[in-house]
Structure formats: structure tokens, C-alpha cells
């Protein structure tokens, strides 16, 4: 052989240099990997499972943080029992609600004045009257809600405007609060209903035109909001006995999947438990505080939207809602759920949004727009996309990386405007994201996206992903456009089980799949069939009465949410299409 061993192992200066570079590169690759935001071992067990299950059902699942033995958290703080306790008097800083900058003390004053004025001028009686709130999301809605609840007068709200006539037929209110623009339509409806001898009292927010005022019939009394508040301001405030937490303070009407009108009764405990559940969505390192600004696209007429509004009140954050869910407008335009809608919330004078509660259509539109903007810088975007995806598959996402600075910050600023840099969490509810949108959404928005499962009868989310969970279960073989993203374990105050489960499949180790029923403090009680009988005598059937066991769905308090759902082995749930 021409070479000897010593010839092969000859080293020179170049070797030393290359050796140093190789060592550095090796250390870089090994230790400079992004650390996952939450250790994956914690994501392997997200719910606590009961040890025993009944035949045909699955076991009962609870959040791992709550555990099977503990009681559910009923309130975000030990002193919060009823709705008015959510307005904390120890928080003194002002915050902006829609366009009104107000402190908690001033809010409590306005609530007390309005309540007193309403009781005097509209002749309402505590616990006997009920008031229909036909308001878009505005501060008057919250003031009215808080005032009525403190005097134990149930309020009624609608989740959609086409429910108005059925509700007026079946549950005639003692008083109605609405906007000036909607007054003509409302008067028409009342006259059409033609209820003789029935006196209506309407409180109007804003200034109705004199023409409308002239057309008011003699049996209808129209009061202005400002007059009512002023009246209540002058006189000593009427104090009513404190409501009990289990009292119903509001009834929310919504249309279920069959189109029937359903009503659900919200008690103080439901809302405080919902506030506690939403509070628990945020990780300890990033809790809600009074420095945050919440933008919600969920209407306050529904239980979920109401719970979000009260979280904002409780935490002292600024709050606004988007325009597309103006339920009561004089024109017939329906809002589109897209980027412009999300930005419409910023038209109010709130500080830049930090937390967004959006619907899936909003998220789809936003992510689409941002990624399209990012694709404009072709070469850099290819690298940025690759690197971001790689770090998300390691469990890490952040707004401060190199790729954000190069590509995504600019894209977000072009789409969302200057407030783009402040968004720190996006929570998706009232709809389901498809599985293939979740990771691109995380890349585009570079912040935790919490996918939740909501229902009009549950205050707050029923299921929510762990805030720092970035897992993506798409594999190379299945088609991700067909399935929904997982919704995570039950929230801290909900327990869930599945009905209609195939026992033999589950005993063999398959994923339990069945109809979802839930129970817990945030779950509200639906009105029963007799209460919803409309004037034509047609009784509306609740979704729950068609469960396989044949029992009514509130046997032991379990409520059927109408979803077919599958449990994954790590305790996370996934809706089956």
C-alpha cells in the first residue's frame, strides 16, 4: 500500500480550523434548538378519566387540573357571588368599554342610577317583571344587565334578530330596551301582533326622530335612556335584596341546529363559573390583567359572548366587539366575517387589542390575508415559512424571532394595521377550525391560538386546548382538510362523557366515539318544552330528548350539546365531522 496510517491521519492548521468549526456547528445544532413552550410529557395526559364506566357510555372526563375528586371552581375569586360582584370596586384605574372611558366606581354609579330610574319610571317589580334587551353590544347593554340583575328582574336576550317575533309571542316582556334606529321596526311588530290592552314600555337608547315619536300609540310608553338615568341619579337609590347566586338573571334565546327556538336560563353561578373557566384558559405566565384589551366577535346576547364581556369587566380590561354582529339595525345588511370586521372593533377608542375572541371564519380570513402578504417577499418567505414550521413542530412559537422581524411583522402590519404587534392570544369559538388551518394560523399570527368548543347553553368554553399546546397531528397519509382541529380537554369546571359508545370497540382499545353530554356549573338550564309552546300550539323539542338512552337529557343534569365527538388517547377531544 502506498499510504500508511500516519499519512492518513496527517493534520495541519486547516484541520484545527475545521475541527473548531465542526465543534461549534455541532454544539449549535444540539443545544440551540427551540425549547417547547410546554413540555410534551404534560400534553400526554390532559384529562382525568374516571375508573368505571356504564355500558354504552364512556367514562366521565374532567380537566387534569381539576381532577376527579375536587369540586369545580364556581367563581374566579372567593368574594364574587353575584353578577354585581364582578365589578370590583378595588380596581381604580379607568378602562375603555367600547368608546366610553370609565372607572369601576363610575360604572357602579351608572348601574345604580339606571336601575332606580327604571324601577320608578317603568313601574317594574322585582322578581315579577321581565325586560327584553334588544340592544347591540354597547355599554348600555351591560349597564342594563347589571342593573336588572341587582334588582332580581330577569332580562331576556336574543342571539339572532329573527327570533324576535316568536319571543314576543311566547314571553311578552314588561319592558323593552332598544336602540333608536330599531324603534320603528319594533313598533311595527308590536302593532302587528295586535295585542289589545297590553301596555308596552320601551326605553330607547339614543334620540328617536320626532316622526317616530309621533307614531307611537297611546298604549305604548316610550322613555329615553338618558331621562331614566337622570331620574335615577336625582333620587335616593332603591335598594333591593341581594339576589342568590342560583337565581336566574337572564334568559337567552337562540336557534338550535334544527332551527327551533330554544331558551336557556342563565344564573349568577353560571356566569361566575364561566368567568373562572375563561380565566383558567390563560397560562400562569400570561394571565389576563387590566393592561389587556379584549376584542370579541361574539354577541352579548348569547351566553358565550356574555361570559367574555363579564371576564373583561372582572379583570378590568378594555373591551369592544366587532361590527358584524349588530343584531338590530335599521338596514338589512348582514355583516361579513372577515378581516375588515375584526378591524372594525378598533374604530372604538380602545387601546390596541391584545386578546382576540374570534370565530373560525375570521381566523381563516386573517390567516389567508397575512400569508398572502408574506408571500410577496418570495425568497425570504420560503425560508421563514420553513423555519417557523420547524420550530412549531418542536413546540415553540414566538413573535420575536428573526423571521418575524424579516417577514411576518410587516405582513401583519399591512393586514391588521399598527395594532398588529400587540395581539398576544387568539381564542377561537362558536365554530370549528379545520385541522389544516391551525399550524398556518400559528405561523401567521405567531401567538398561541386556543381552539375551543362552545355551545349556546354553556357560559364560557366547554372544551379548550391548553394555551401553549402547539401539537399538530396531521401525518403524511391522511387528508387534513377533512377533519376538525382537536378542541382539547374539558375546561376546569366541566365534566363530560360520551353516549352511544360501542363497548366492544372500546374494550379493544379503540378511541371512544359518541354523542357528547356535559355537566357542570357553567352549563345553563334550558327552558322545557311547555314554556316554548308558540301560539300555534307547536311544541319545540329540545335536542336532548333524542338521546339513545331514552331519558330526558337533564337526568342528573347532563346536557346534550349535539356534537359527535371522539376522545384521543391523551385526553383531548376532537369533533367528528
Amino acid at each position, binding site marked *: 500500500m502506498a499510504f500508511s496510517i500516519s499519512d*492518513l*491521519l*496527517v*493534520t*495541519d*492548521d*486547516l*484541520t484545527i480550523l*475545521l*475541527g473548531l*468549526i*465542526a465543534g461549534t*456547528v*455541532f454544539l*449549535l*445544532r444540539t443545544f440551540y434548538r427551540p425549547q*417547547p413552550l410546554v*413540555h*410534551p*410529557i404534560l*400534553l*400526554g*395526559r390532559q384529562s382525568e*378519566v*374516571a*375508573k*368505571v*364506566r*356504564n*355500558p354504552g357510555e*364512556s*367514562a366521565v372526563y374532567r380537566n387534569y387540573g381539576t381532577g376527579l375528586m375536587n369540586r369545580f371552581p364556581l367563581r374566579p375569586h372567593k368574594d364574587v357571588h353575584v353578577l354585581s360582584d364582578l365589578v370590583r370596586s378595588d380596581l381604580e384605574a379607568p378602562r375603555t368599554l367600547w368608546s366610553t372611558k370609565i372607572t369601576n366606581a363610575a360604572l357602579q354609579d351608572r348601574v345604580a342610577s339606571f336601575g332606580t330610574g327604571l324601577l320608578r319610571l317603568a313601574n317594574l317589580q322585582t322578581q315579577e317583571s321581565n325586560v327584553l334587551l334588544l340592544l347591540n353590544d354597547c355599554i348600555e347593554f351591560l349597564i342594563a344587565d347589571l342593573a336588572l340583575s341587582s334588582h332580581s328582574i330577569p332580562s331576556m336576550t336574543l342571539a339572532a334578530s329573527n327570533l324576535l317575533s316568536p319571543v314576543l309571542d311566547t314571553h311578552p316582556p314588561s319592558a323593552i330596551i332598544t336602540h333608536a334606529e330599531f324603534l320603528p321596526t319594533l313598533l311595527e311588530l308590536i302593532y302587528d301582533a295586535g295585542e289589545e290592552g297590553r301596555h308596552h314600555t320601551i326605553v330607547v337608547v339614543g334620540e328617536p326622530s320626532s316622526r317616530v315619536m309621533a307614531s307611537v300609540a297611546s298604549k305604548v310608553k316610550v322613555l329615553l335612556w338618558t331621562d331614566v338615568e337622570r331620574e335615577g341619579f336625582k333620587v335616593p337609590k332603591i335598594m333591593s335584596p341581594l339576589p342568590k347566586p342560583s337565581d336566574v338573571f337572564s334568559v337567552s334565546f337562540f336557534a338550535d341546529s334544527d332551527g327551533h327556538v330554544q331558551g336557556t336560563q342563565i344564573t349568577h353561578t353560571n356566569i361566575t363559573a364561566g368567568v373562572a373557566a375563561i380565566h383558567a384558559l390563560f397560562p400562569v405566565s400570561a394571565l389576563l390583567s387590566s393592561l389587556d384589551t379584549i376584542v370579541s366577535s361574539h354577541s352579548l346576547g348569547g351566553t358565550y359572548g356574555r361570559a367574555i364581556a363579564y371576564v373583561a369587566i372582572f379583570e378590568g380590561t378594555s373591551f369592544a366587539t366587532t361590527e358584524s354582529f349588530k343584531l338590530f339595525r335599521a338596514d338589512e345588511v348582514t355583516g361579513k366575517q372577515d378581516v375588515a370586521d375584526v378591524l372594525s372593533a378598533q374604530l372604538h377608542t380602545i387601546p390596541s387589542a391584545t386578546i382576540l375572541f374570534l370565530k373560525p371564519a375570521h381566523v381563516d380570513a386573517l390567516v389567508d390575508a397575512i400569508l398572502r402578504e408574506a408571500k410577496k417577499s418570495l425568497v425570504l418567505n420560503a*425560508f421563514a415559512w*420553513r*423555519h417557523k*414550521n*420547524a420550530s412549531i*413542530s*418542536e*413546540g415553540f412559537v414566538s413573535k420575536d424571532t428573526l423571521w418575524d422581524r424579516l417577514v411576518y411583522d410587516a405582513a401583519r402590519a399591512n393586514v391588521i394595521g399598527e395594532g398588529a404587534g400587540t395581539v398576544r392570544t387568539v381564542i377561537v369559538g362558536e365554530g370549528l377550525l379545520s385541522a389544516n388551518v391551525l399550524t398556518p394560523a400559528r405561523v401567521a399570527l405567531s401567538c398561541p391560538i386556543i381552539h375551543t368548543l362552545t355551545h349556546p347553553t354553556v357560559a364560557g368554553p366547554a372544551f379548550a386546548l391548553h394555551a401553549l399546546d*402547539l*401539537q*399538530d*397531528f*396531521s*401525518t*403524511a*397519509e391522511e387528508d387534513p382538510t377533512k377533519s376538525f382541529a382537536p378542541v382539547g380537554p374539558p375546561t376546569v369546571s366541566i365534566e363530560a362523557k360520551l353516549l352511544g359508545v360501542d*363497548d366492544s370497540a*372500546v*374494550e379493544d*382499545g379503540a*378511541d*371512544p366515539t359518541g354523542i357528547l353530554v356535559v355537566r357542570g356549573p357553567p352549563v345553563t338550564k334550558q327552558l322545557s318544552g311547555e314554556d316554548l309552546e308558540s301560539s300555534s300550539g307547536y311544541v319545540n323539542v329540545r335536542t336532548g330528548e333524542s338521546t339513545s338512552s331514552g331519558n330526558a337529557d337533564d337526568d342528573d343534569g347532563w346536557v346534550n350539546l349535539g356534537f359527535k365527538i371522539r*376522545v*384521543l*388517547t*391523551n*385526553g383531548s377531544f376532537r369533533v367528528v365531522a
Partner: protein
Amino acid sequence: MAFDVGTPINTALLLFILYSVQKIVFPSTSLPKEIPHEFRNGYSWLPKSHQPTVLFKTYTPKTLAPFHGKDNGRILLAINGIVFDVTAGRNFYGPRNFAGRDASKGMAKQSFDLDMLTPIDQPLDKLTDLQPDEIDNMKGWVEHFSNKYIVCGKLVENDVA
């Protein structure tokens, strides 16, 4: 300095550096073929199987009897019509008198005698001849068992099931 990579060590080092740099600049973004079952194998992982749960069954004295644990199987015990899975307490309730039987009377009277048990093919012991304090004792045992062991079924008469 001459860039002589003719020497094998230099070539090897250079190739290693190029490979590592390529991995850093172009990270892999291919989706896995199947979901990993260990957290070490991937961030998006799922455990292989669900938490074990026991199906709540209705037992009769005849179907309960095989669960005496003599063959290292499950050990079941019934008190007051409730069936408990006491496999975890094998040392106490192992292949002895009460495994696979209705132990209500024995628990009430605090006795392990064989005459506390009724034969399998006869109707269940109605427990009408017990004193109130013995009934309380038995209820106390039911409470203790409910906290310590899994309630996995109920016990009915032989012909009812």
C-alpha cells in the same frame, strides 16, 4: 493557506460541517408517516392506549363466584349489593372466604366465619336479622371500600340478570 482537502480528516470534517449547516439552514418540514407514541420521538405525540376503565356490570352470585383470584385474576367482592374490585388489596382479600362472594353479613358482624356466606345458588341474604349498629358498621365498610377501591358493578339475584 492552501485549501487542500486531500487529507481525509479535513474532508471528513468539511463534509460534517456542510451537512450540519445544511440542516440548520434548511430544517426538515416533512410530516411524519404516523403519529409517534413516545414524547421523545416527537412533539406531537399520542400515548399508545387510553387510560384503563372498567365496565359497570350486573353480577349474580353465580357470575361473581369466578372472581376469587385463585388464578391471579381479578378479585371482586360484594357488600350491600355493590360490587367492588379489590384486586389491589390482594393480600387482604385474596383467595379466601369472601372473594367472589357477597360479604355483607360478614362485614356487618365483623366476622370471617364461613357461615356468614350464603351458598351461591340460594337467594341473596336479605340481612333482615342484623342489628342497627351492625347495619351502620356495614355502611361504614361500604364507605371505606368506595374510597379505596373501584365500584364496578351491582349484585342481583340469580334469575334476575
